[in-house]
């Protein structure tokens, strides 16, 4: 099972993760910090979350599994 963690202190709100995996990530409208959408990630998101992690300039996304 794919497990994703966002380091909220590292996230700079670039939103690259949203472009790679729009179903998985969203940004808080007030703080501009990324969060995981409810029920995500799922198994189908496996590749997309890896791309999101690789694309994150702040290296704020960790993917396990």
């Amino acid at each position, binding site marked *: 099972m794919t497990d994703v963690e966002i380091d909220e202190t590292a996230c*700079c*709100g670039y939103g690259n993760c949203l472009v790679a995996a729009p179903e998985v990530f969203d940004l808080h409208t007030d703080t501009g910090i990324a969060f995981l959408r409810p029920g995500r990630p799922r198994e189908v998101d496996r590749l997309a979350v890896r791309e999101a992690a690789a*694309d994150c*300039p702040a290296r704020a996304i960790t993917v396990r599994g």
Partner: protein
Amino acid sequence: MSTVADPTGFGFDPYDPELTEPAVWNRYRAAQNLGGAVRAPDRDGFWLVTSYDEVRTALRDPATFSSASGHRIPTDGSRRAIPIDFDPPLHTAYRALMAEALSPARVRALRPFLAEVVTRLVDDFAAAGGGDFVSAVALPLPLQVLTELVGFSGETVAQFRTLTEELWSRYVDVDPAESHRRLWELMRAELADHRARPRDDFLGSLLHAEIEGRPIREDEQVGILATFAVAGHETTMNAAATLAWLLVEHPEAQAALRADPTRARAFVEEMLRHRSPAQNFARRTTCPARVGGTAVAEGDAVLLSLAAANRDPERFPDPDRFDPDRDARGHLAFGWGIHQCIGAPLARTELVLLLEELAARPPLCAAGPPVWSSLQGGNHLGLTHLPLLFEEET
């Protein structure tokens, strides 16, 4: 300008004074029509990359597309700026140090200050009956922010504009070694002043910073401060003036914004996509690579055109249309990947605040013809003069 013959001979001199509004956009489109990467013979020769996918792919791959030879054409590795002209691991260390001053938490803490500066500048502009928006609002805004953000004195930031303009002149005949020296001297004086009278700001923290476990050198401190001085004001100034110009050019978009100021954020993103203020960034290949189906040799210079990529019809339909209602996400105006702009959270906040402030006033209209610069340093597109005024309310 030369006419287009074939993909191996597309003239594109980034320092050509004719590359300005609106000709520059036609030039990018002409390059795009020839393919994702075209060979330009100018300035020692380079590949001009204009397709969204190809530009982003290169930005994602810093091991192949190195920044260490500089982000300007020609990539001769002279006068490297920190952190932008470095590759990992040194780049990572510099960037982490600088990012402290620009983190989202820091920007949130700065917000009341930013709002106050924006309101005061626009108040003064309105009270004066309008005038040149560039010198009255777009330039002083980032300069005043730099005093608070870094800890520069007001007298120091007042010299940034002249020195920056002189720096760009390197690329059009005049040798600005002298202005470079003056900028560095100014930074050294700030460091000395902070050593003599310690203060709790970024400049103060830089005095005792460490890079890769050793004390930072003075030339590194000076380089970091010089980057804040130049990168911190030029881009924001151009972005702010472009926003105001767009309001006047697109009255319907201005009306929509005035009716609903929550549209400001999307308006800013579409400005960044449609008229990317920082347009072209160079890299150099560390091994043979393929760009846009073209073989690029090891050691070749490539110029990644963010501005052209942001108008790639394959990525953004009807790309030349300014449409604040479109989904501009994924635009490359701040770059992409390890060098992606660390000033983005700050710049976005400043620009949204400015737009909200303008939308809360009477309608903004033109008070004379605007003047656009050519690409400054082969990169920055903006207005040098923008006469505007608020309509009289009746």
